[in-house]
């Protein structure tokens, strides 16, 4: 009886792990290359804290009028969103867009671009 229970538990655990195994097969996104050699902070810092940096900068700009370039959403786009060969910029919903490439992989929805335009300052 006891061994049957153990077998059952193992079977259930295996069944639960199956979807996880298939998740691991989602390929790491192909992150579009930006302009220049170096981001405004090391990549691992940016990956972990970009949302906090952006919110902090957002409040400073909105309420205090501080318009420095570091950690500004517009400057992220200016470097990281580059024109496609046909001269157009990738749509925010496509995986070619720098922000969406990771965000669709991580399944984290962003609403920045309901208001902000998702392309660099100077079109063309």
């Amino acid at each position, binding site marked *: 009886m006891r061994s049957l229970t153990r077998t059952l538990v193992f079977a259930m655990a295996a069944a639960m792990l199956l979807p996880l195994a298939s998740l691991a097969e989602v390929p790491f996104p192909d992150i579009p290359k930006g302009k220049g050699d170096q981001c405004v902070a090391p990549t691992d810092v940016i990956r972990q804290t970009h949302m906090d940096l952006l919110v902090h900068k*957002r409040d400073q700009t909105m*309420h*205090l*009028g*501080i318009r420095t370039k570091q950690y500004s959403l*517009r400057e992220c786009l200016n470097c990281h969103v580059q024109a496609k060969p046909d001269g157009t910029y990738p749509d925010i919903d496509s995986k070619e867009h720098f922000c969406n490439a990771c965000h669709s992989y991580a399944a984290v929805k962003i609403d920045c671009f*309901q208001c*902000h*335009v998702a392309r660099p*300052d100077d079109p063309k």
Partner: protein
Amino acid sequence: MSSNNDSKRSRRTFLKGTAAVATGLALAPGVRLLGVAQAKADDEAVTGAVRWGLLIDTAKCSDCDVCVEACHAENGVKDQGDPETTPQWIRKLMAKDKMTGHVVTLPMMCQHCEHPPCVDVCPTGASFRRADGIVLVDRHICIGCRYCMMACPYKARSFEHVDVTDQAPHAPRGKGTVESCTMCVHRVDKGREPACVEACNSTGQGAMVFGDLKDSTSSISMALAEHGGKQIRADLGLNTGVRYRGI
């Protein structure tokens, strides 16, 4: 001008003069000092040492709408086809005195009150007054309740009813939030004039003056001191930043 103001002014003039010499600028008479004297550094926070204001001379303002066109082009406000829902950051009004037949036209927009009713009623703190007197909506925290639109005596605010695409990079706008004249805050922070004022003075009637109400030597303060300027609905005691002449 009182002697007290004279002494203040001479000190300011002296300081401005030394700044101009230090940067090697030769200022011709009539050249605006806005760009040189009042542009703040990008990393500098705005302070209450300045208060931005507008003076509109209705005697010069005529039947044209370059200010409206310029504002909406600058901030990416487009006609949505339905006049009931298309946002208006600025609009032209016409007022006629029925007895005399005298007609006045003027641009109406956010009056950038010192005591703004929209800020009083906002339940989230999205509607706020910046230290330099510019009244804004922080659309990151606006929930679109439109209480501010009800409270504003000037009907200056609009609600964005539809999805917005292809916004101007400096003027983010989106569905479900309230918006209004920002006094072109992105330009003011860079030491430039609002788009309406620039357009009015270049291709319009030259009826608008922009400047610092707290600086007694600014062109707006001098014009106000000389000719005066009225607030619309002065009875409400809001101390508006936008003043009108000839109404």
